[in-house]
């Protein structure tokens, strides 16, 4: 009889290995968080959060916080209706034909485009091309930034919405139709209400992720702007600062003319907290959903 390793020992070795691998995942997370906290916390003061930047990345980051928040709002406003509409079409209406296949491939491709390419496209299309048709000087505006980000999160919104719609059991639709509802009434009354938490969760998570993206808006957001998006005069057509791009420009200049080398960490910490706050509703909805779902 051949010698076999005691299965109990194998069990212990395998278990130990899996545990170590799992712990390895925690290390970078903790590291990122702790280093950011350690270096960034000293930077964060009330003034840092509520005043505009001065020369050489002194002063605060107030315009960048507001810029990122407005950017997120703009992205939601643009991407949610389009993404949800496309998801409803694809999951409820579309026939299995060539057009549908092309649309689906398009969505997958959209998700595969590198974010910096979105940045370049956004600049070329929304800022330069569309800018020339507008009466006002529509340059590197909040609107251009929102449209670019919206384009980038669209696949996420569509996929999340489709999954949520397709998770609604088929018999909800059958019952509704058998009661004389039209297809749209069925979607409106028997499908959407049950898919909505899932749609919102997926959308918010996707957009929370996009809020921290630098590349798509790096050619559009201002590196340095000592004022808020000019809400008074131009609304969404004014230039803006955003946290990720400001983080990039300060970090790129540390050692040259940045006063405080810890400033990028402070910005990073604020950005992380902001993204957490933005995604918090999604986390809460999802937790509630897990407890409440019964079908």
């Amino acid at each position, binding site marked *: 009889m051949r010698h076999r390793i005691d299965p109990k020992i194998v069990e212990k070795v395998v278990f130990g290995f899996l545990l170590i691998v799992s712990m390895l995942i925690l290390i970078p997370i903790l590291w990122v968080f702790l280093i950011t906290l350690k270096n960034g916390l000293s930077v964060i003061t009330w003034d840092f959060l509520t005043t505009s930047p001065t020369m050489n990345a002194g002063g605060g980051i107030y315009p960048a916080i507001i810029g990122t928040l407005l950017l997120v709002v703009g992205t939601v406003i643009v991407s949610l209706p389009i993404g949800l509409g496309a998801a409803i079409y694809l999951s409820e209406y579309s026939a299995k034909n060539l057009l549908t296949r092309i649309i689906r491939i398009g969505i997958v491709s959209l998700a595969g485009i590198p974010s910096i390419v979105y940045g370049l496209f956004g600049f070329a299309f929304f800022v330069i091309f569309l800018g020339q048709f507008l009466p006002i000087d529509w340059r590197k505006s909040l609107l251009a930034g929102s449209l670019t980000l919206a384009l980038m999160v669209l696949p996420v919104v569509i996929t999340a919405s489709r999954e949520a719609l397709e998770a609604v059991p088929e018999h909800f639709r059958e019952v509704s139709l058998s009661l004389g509802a039209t297809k749209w009434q069925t979607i409106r009354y028997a499908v959407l209400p049950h898919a909505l938490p899932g749609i919102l969760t997926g959308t918010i998570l996707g957009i929370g992720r996009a809020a921290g993206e630098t590349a798509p808006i790096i050619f559009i957001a201002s590196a340095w702007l000592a004022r808020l998006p000019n809400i008074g005069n131009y609304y969404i057509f004014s230039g803006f600062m955003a946290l990720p791009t400001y983080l990039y420009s300060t970090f790129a200049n540390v050692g040259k003319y940045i006063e405080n080398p810890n400033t990028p960490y402070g910005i990073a910490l604020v950005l992380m907290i902001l993204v957490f706050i933005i995604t918090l509703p999604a986390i809460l909805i999802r937790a509630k959903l897990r407890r409440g779902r019964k*079908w």
Partner: protein
Amino acid sequence: MDKYLMDTAALEPVAQIKIKTTNLDLFYGDFQALINVNMEIAANKITALIGPSGCGKSTLLRVFNRMNDLIEECQVTGTVLIDDQDIYLPGTDLIDLRKKVGMVFQRPNPFPLSIYENIVFGLKVHGLARKSELDYHVEQSLKEVMLWDKLKDKLHRNALSLTLEQQQRLCIARLLPVKPDIILMDEPCSSLDPVSTQRVEELMKVLKEEYTIVIVTHNMAQAARVSEEAGFMLLGQLVEFGRTSQIFTTPKDKRTEDYITGRYG
């Protein structure tokens, strides 16, 4: 009591015909699921469709409210008259048809909403929103399915917290506010225990006073208990159709006899 009713049925004047199919064929793509079905379903009676799995009885049921339309490549030829109206004519209003012909499904399938919201679903879809009217319909519908006394204080509980039998009654109640004439039941008791089944059967006998009921069932004993007329289907054909007592005691067709005596099925 029922036996007595059945025995005298032959003496009654000819019943009003609610549904009439003529030379009905139905295809799923190349597959013919219904072959030349000719039948007349009488108003205010319970008509059972029996037969082995895959014989087309559920398909036939779904012809009457055109739920088969949802299946791609489903094609129907021949005529189906409901109250002398051909429901397959182009331009038929599916909304009106389905309001008139309600359906109860195999598994109790209330929405994961409150009992109240389940019953008013149809009304809300069709644009009725006044609270007093909704309240009225909830009470009436629950009374008709004999759930009102039990549930009147729990109307805002989730319908999924009810027993399966109550859920199935609720699904019947959900049909009533849109005022159907005909109720189609697709094996409505197949997920219920015998006692619940018996109670739902009793409810059916009450409901037939006001509605025409067509029930698909696997359960031969159930067909014998509740229905006044029955059709035996096999491989897409309506082999035999007649009074239930006759089908079960003196079937004309050998295949019917073989099935009801349990030689296959």
